[in-house]
């Protein structure tokens, strides 16, 4: 069954093709894109629409590839050894499963999310080449091999903090989520806030895209910020007219804190608003 997006997630055509190609050809799919364009949520939604379990592996700067496979809990074994526990004879008692093992062991085909792979050490992707290719790995301590029962659907997200090695890239399919255009954005907002007043939405989107066009913003507001902001606007019952207002005294959008995340950006906006006001005063 191909992936078509869900009732809470609007997938563009190119994204659908990428996801379905990755599922059909059983390749990991590498997702990049501006922060806040729904890279991580995508895995959630694929799992939901396919009815598959989702196994999330969030990567940190200290994560090693080995952690995804298994851990050998030597400290527990040492303690048991000193206490004279019989379990200590069997080393497999101290092998702790990692996320990938969990996925390989799943009885139905799972969706695996390797989130923010670029956070890890530069060698991390290289250490996973064979595992992702063959979907199997070897446990040296017990001399057994774990083979996946069902090849999982693997999604990998990256924020471009590090370049990924070529050998790794060659094994993945790639998709770059572009910032949605106004039409797609409208659809996205519609699924999240179905009862939002049409007028309010139109005005809010206008404000939002105007804001994105301001040169020099450190962090442009993205989809997730827009959704947060709309939530606030709805909660505060802000009127559409206030958004549209050309009143020079109120050039900064209400509740702008949800849209702009950096103090410098807020200052920039205030300064622009000030200049604008002064120009009007001179007119």
């Amino acid at each position, binding site marked *: 069954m191909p992936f078509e997006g869900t009732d809470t997630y609007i997938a563009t055509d190119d994204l659908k*093709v990428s996801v379905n190609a990755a599922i059909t050809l059983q390749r990991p799919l590498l997702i990049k894109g501006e922060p806040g364009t729904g890279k991580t949520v995508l895995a959630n939604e694929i799992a939901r629409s396919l009815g598959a379990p989702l196994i999330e592996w969030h990567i940190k700067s200290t994560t090693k590839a080995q952690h995804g496979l298994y851990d050998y809990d030597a400290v527990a074994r040492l303690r048991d050894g000193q206490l004279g526990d019989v379990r200590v004879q069997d080393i497999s008692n101290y092998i702790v499963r990692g996320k990938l093992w969990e996925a390989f062991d799943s009885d139905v085909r799972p969706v695996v999310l390797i989130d923010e792979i670029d956070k890890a050490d530069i060698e991390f992707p290289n250490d996973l080449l064979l595992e992702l290719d063959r979907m199997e790995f070897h446990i040296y301590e017990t001399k057994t091999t774990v083979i996946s029962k069902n090849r999982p659907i693997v999604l990998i997200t990256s924020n471009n903090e590090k370049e990924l090695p070529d050998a790794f890239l060659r094994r*993945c399919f*790639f998709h770059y989520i572009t910032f949605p255009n106004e039409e797609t954005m409208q659809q996205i907002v519609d699924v999240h806030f179905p009862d939002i007043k049409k007028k309010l939405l139109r005005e809010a989107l206008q404000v939002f895209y105007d804001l994105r066009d301001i040169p020099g913003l450190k962090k442009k507001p993205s989809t997730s910020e827009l959704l947060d902001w709309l939530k606030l606007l709805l909660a505060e019952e802000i009127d559409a007219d206030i958004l549209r207002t050309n009143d020079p005294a109120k050039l900064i959008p209400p509740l702008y804190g949800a849209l702009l995340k950096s103090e410098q950006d807020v200052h920039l906006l205030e300064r622009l608003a000030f200049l604008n006001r002064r120009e009007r005063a001179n007119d």
Partner: protein
Amino acid sequence: MFFKFFSDLRRLDVPVSLREYLDLLGALDKGLGHYQVEEFYYLARTILIKNESHIDRFDQVFASIFRGLEAVDFEEEIVEIPEEWLRKMGELLLTEEEKENIESLGGWEKLMETLRQRLEEQKERHQGGNKWIGTQGKSPFGAQGYNPEGIRIGQEENRNYSAVKVWDKRIFRDLDSDIELGTRNIKVALRRLRKFAREGSADELDLDDTVSSTARNGGWLDIKMVPERHNAVKVLLLFDVGGSMDSHVRTCEELFSAARTEFKHLEYYYFHNCIYESVWKENRRRQSRRLATWDLLHTYSSDYKLIIVGDAAMSPYEIAHPGGSVEHWNEESGDIWLRRLVKTYPNVSWLNPLPKDRWRYFQSAGMVSELLEGRMFPLTLDGLESAMRSMNN
């Protein structure tokens, strides 16, 4: 199948390998993307391309191949544009009055010739395949108020396509690594410079040392700590301001704001055209608050990486002669100061916002580059990466 497509991609330096090619064929074999050209485009893109900076080049190749334009050659462009196309376009765009005007300008034939030339230039610049006429502010066609958007020459030849295809929109153009230099891209490039070192208070367990000290201790635990790793790179930025640099202010600002968040130790100063005996930090008070370059050399140790940003476009005298500065009388010439900087900071590079092929018009650019032992790089993403690489050695 699609072999020309594949080899054209390689010709434009998109790193596609046999593996991706076979993957694409495999996907088609499984029935993916067969029935719609758009779907095929998405499929090919997701399989062949691994980096957003290559998508724009991919779009161009795709456009050229799948519109049956076999004649695209990236090196030597010989494109025949059928006369009817031009004529049709002219008729479409020009009013009777304008046509008369044209007659007076040298006639229809002449105009057609010009238009043909324009189009060929256009193709060359787009590296083939793109049939759009850009905004040609200076052309007679533009002046006569024709809106270039949405008119494609040879529309009838490609009846099957609607006006704008996804790949023709070229929305990924901004991400091509040769062109744009957004803050985010600069950050990625600057990260090449990162060098982690242990610094600060000891708050991480050093396992190896703990084990060996415990063993030496006869089994009694002896815990050893080490400091956490931090990015320990120090960067000194010198910006050329004013004059010919004014048009590059934006690029420089982006570079600066990216660098600022990327490095913990970042110092910056300004200079004008060439570095002489003093630099300054606040452009507004450049006359009153200056730092002697000697002090700069003594304040920042030689493990700082020095990045100089400037267009190096000045008169050769400003570098080679005492008193050459356009602003004041300098006792010692610019090249002496540059030599001192290079000597103090072995990791130095000069970033030039001018495109590389324009450097040769300025003798001064060559002189500066020579003083820096060739470490002058264009301020593009690729240039920035080469600069970072050269400084990491």
